[in-house]
């Protein structure tokens, strides 16, 4: 849920605009799909956007801020102030079902609910619950807990034999 304050009509427009700004690392999800846009405030045409970082080490955060800024400028508004909000900590539970479907179609297994991955249980015990995004089989295994980006693990389906990425529950 994105909170909108101040001039809510313009705020809604900004939100619709940000819903088109894609994450550079998973370019089927927008920054709104990911849940990193927390609030938008518009006062007398000046825009303040609070975002929450995903992983501390996510190198995409700077390009994402730049893309958000460009999108707001593209609406004819002035350059937004972008604030970083740490709390509550970002969680993949904020990725809603329509966005999860986009991930599946893109070949990435969407994150399991956070409750399914508790504490420090071995990943091997979790991977058996990740359905293959290609054939829905549950016979899957982890190849590497760190994939091409910090947010993904590399898995393989034992039925269709295809490798796939899993958007880790966080």
């Amino acid at each position: 849920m994105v909170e909108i304050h101040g001039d809510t009509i313009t705020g809604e427009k900004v939100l619709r605009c940000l819903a088109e700004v894609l994450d550079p690392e998973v370019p089927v999800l927008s920054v709104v799909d990911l849940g990193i846009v927390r609030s938008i405030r518009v006062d007398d045409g000046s825009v303040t956007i609070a975002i929450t970082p995903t992983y501390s080490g996510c190198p995409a955060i700077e390009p994402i801020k730049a893309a958000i800024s460009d999108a707001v400028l593209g609406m004819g508004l002035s350059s937004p102030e972008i604030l970083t909000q740490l709390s509550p900590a970002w969680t993949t539970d904020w990725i809603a079902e329509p966005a999860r479907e986009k991930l599946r179609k893109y070949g990435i297994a969407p994150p399991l609910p956070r409750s399914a991955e508790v504490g420090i249980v071995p990943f091997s015990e979790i991977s058996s619950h990740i359905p293959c995004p290609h054939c829905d089989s549950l016979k899957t295994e982890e190849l590497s807990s760190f994939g091409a980006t910090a947010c993904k693990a590399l898995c393989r389906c034992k039925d269709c034999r295809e490798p796939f990425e899993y958007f880790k529950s966080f």
Partner: protein
Amino acid sequence: MTSNRVEHGGAAHTSSRKALDHFVLEIADDALVLGHRLSEWCGHGPTIEEDIALSNISLDHLGQAQCLYELLVENDANYGSADKLAFFRDSFEFRNCILVEQENGDFAQTIVRQVYFSAYYYFLYEQLSSCPISLLSDFAAKARKEVSYHLRHAGEWILRLGDGTTESKARAQAAIVQLWPFVEELLAPSEAASILIAESQVFEPSTVSSAYKQYLETLLSEATLEVPSSTAASPLNGRQLKHSEHLSQLLSVMQSTARAHPDALW
């Protein structure tokens, strides 16, 4: 980051404010130094997957350090900037523990260092995430999730190394013994931590310590490895600014570009 204005809760007094700053620097410097050490593996990992994993863990640690440095700067402009804290302090000003400045050694040493480190932070953050100082609790709630992945990853390697070949087992056991004297520094609360604990009950050291030891015993026994019986702790102590020579060597590499071009932007 103005939305993050920090309420110091019980730590508004000057001495406890200083203790809070020192405690945050301990955590941030740990993350920065280990993050740099892990980055030395980039391009040298035993497999491409592991190269990527170590780099990702490194990035998480660097991001954690940056976040904490920025929070310090936000509360006290005298710190200058996150870059100034990372690149323009000398080794005797760093508060990181001795464990993280140890050289990478072989892969087993790197993995054992990670397990010793991440297990401590996993249990520390578990407690800090509900402590009354919002700067600490907000950060810990987020960092704990990252650390849980690091610990899970390194822990699985311990199982493979210990239960692998004679060679991998011998190397893992040697690393466990070699790095053991640095664990005590993590588990014993620093002066700064002690002040915060006394004033705001930020965490309970004995709970962290017993959870840590329990975790290690379980992991190592499953890996057919042994917890060292020695209780000899290293005379060095990074929380007291008494570092090994490894730190100044690490900093000379890490800080060289920033110091050669102090006004550069990138």
